[in-house]
């Protein structure tokens, strides 16, 4: 599994397309409403899945642990939302924490972790 993280609009998906030959059909985009569906070679916007988790009382890390065989060969992309001030709303705080814990877990499991900054790759692992 490859993990790609980075701030909003930094070019994470463009990087995946360029470096891993991902095409539009290979991408599953998570949403706050529908959560996640495994199976696609590239899963985009994990931060929407974690927001779905917060809304539905699901633990994102436990969920990923339980479905390990379904994503262990995927490219996972998540927006880094950890650097701002502590959000005022409880659900946004929970969202930030859930996303941070999921990324920390996935970083440990990943064979490669890249952070995208202004379209440039910073190899973290």
């Amino acid at each position, binding site marked *: 599994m490859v993990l790609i993280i980075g701030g909003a609009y*930094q070019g994470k998906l463009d990087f995946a397309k360029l470096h891993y030959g991902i095409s539009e059909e290979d991408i599953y985009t998570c949403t706050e409403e529908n959560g996640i569906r495994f199976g696609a070679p590239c899963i985009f916007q994990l931060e929407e899945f974690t927001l779905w988790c917060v809304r539905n009382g699901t633990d994102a890390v436990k969920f990923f642990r339980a479905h390990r065989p379904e994503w262990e060969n995927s490219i996972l992309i998540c927006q*880094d*939302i950890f650097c*701002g001030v502590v*959000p005022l709303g409880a659900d*946004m705080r929970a969202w930030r924490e859930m996303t941070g814990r999921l990324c920390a877990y996935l970083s440990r499991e990943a064979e490669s972790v890249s952070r995208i*900054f*202004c*379209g*440039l790759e910073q190899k973290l692992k």
Partner: protein
Amino acid sequence: MNVLISGGCKNGKTGFAQDIAVRLSGNGKRYYVATMIPCDDEDRARILRHIEGRSDMGFETLECSRDIAACMNGAKSDATFLIDSVTALLVNEMYPDPHMEQADQSAAFRCQSGLLRVAREAKNAVFVSDYIYSDAIRYDSFTETYRTCLALLDRTLAEVCDTVIELCAGNAVCHKGGLDL
């Protein structure tokens, strides 16, 4: 040579950019291109602090809050330009009337072509921007549009610059090129 410096707020980007500009320019002319339009006393105090900070560094200050390529008009051809900042330039171009919440939709492309012209034509240019992409907030479309446009400018500059630096608590993380200028 072109250098992009970004990072979080209050990480010493301006001071770092000034040092880089001094090193790049050698004995050549150096311009500090100020883009911010002061709105209140806090802004004016900040500008005074910046002016004081670079007073003995040999910069000539040019005020250029819009149409950034115009900073090169009449300037010496072998000069080094420090553009501080891309963030403020985009604000000024996008919201020409600060009391109106109406964004100028073509502003980002105008800034993009102006910045590219500076990068192409100036002997050396140092661009300062701000990294505002990693917080856990659902912004309104007004703010989100601004973030999208600034990211476009940042990525454009990162592509054409020889060196890209992220400052973190005053420390330089080099994403492209190197610091042996």
